[in-house]
């Protein structure tokens, strides 16, 4: 199975904490704490509530089965996101191959003039979720993912860099362009 982010690259040979199977009560606490973050990432990355629901179920089932592989060298949130991103990426790849969807060309947004520092103004909250989804759908997978990850305040630039296998400086640079692309696209969806 193809993976977007490497699970082995951030897992050192020597475990940093004992490998412990997850008890059902602990799993319930883990779900309580992280399900919103996982579901939100899946929802906005996949753009489909039903598929996000399926993905969240599958991710947590995988977490339950593979928890003894979590070595604690990255944060639990990072590990959960790694599983979620790989799962969602594989789903998207299979749709792309089935439906021959074209990928978004980010350079279109990069050359457009846009006031990057101007705030995003929202008058109508009712359909805001749909508008955000339409905006994200118009971005490349990479820009969409970077924006969703940086929106999680628990994630540092270094953790995002580790997850997406690039340097923190590269993440900063791409985020600058991703914000600009998002702002332009968002204005157009008004």
């Amino acid at each position: 199975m193809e993976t977007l982010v490497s699970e082995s690259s951030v897992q050192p040979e020597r475990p940093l904490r004992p490998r412990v199977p997850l008890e059902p009560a602990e799993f319930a606490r883990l779900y309580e704490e992280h399900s919103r973050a996982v579901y939100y990432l899946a929802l906005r990355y996949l753009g489909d509530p039903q598929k996000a629901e399926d993905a969240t179920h599958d991710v947590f089932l995988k977490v339950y089965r593979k928890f003894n592989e979590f070595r604690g060298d990255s944060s639990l949130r990072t590990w959960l996101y790694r599983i979620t991103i790989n799962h969602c990426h594989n789903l998207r790849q299979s749709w792309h191959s089935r439906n021959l969807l074209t990928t978004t060309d980010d350079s279109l947004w990069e050359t457009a003039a846009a006031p990057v520092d101007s705030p995003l103004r929202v008058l109508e909250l009712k359909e805001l979720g749909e508008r955000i989804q339409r905006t994200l759908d118009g971005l490349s997978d990479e820009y969409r993912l970077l924006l969703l990850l940086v929106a999680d305040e628990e994630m540092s630039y270094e953790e995002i860099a580790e997850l997406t296998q690039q340097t923190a400086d590269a993440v900063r640079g791409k985020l600058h362009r991703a914000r600009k692309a998002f702002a332009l696209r968002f204005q157009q969806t008004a």
Partner: protein
Amino acid sequence: MKRQTKHTSQEQEQLSQMQSQERSALEFATPEDLLRHDAKEVSVPPEIAERLARSLQSEPRPARSWWRRFLDR
């Protein structure tokens, strides 16, 4: 004079509508601020937890580690 009063009241109404719109408008400095707001508005469907509970019933129960068995004695 009455006409002037009516006009002023229309203006006031428009102004009041504009002020109301101003109050309901939200501004987000960055896309991630907007996404954070969106994330707070999204709730996790309870069906996921129900499905997980059913799925976990058919999963083999994890073996307890020796130190946990020792501590639970």
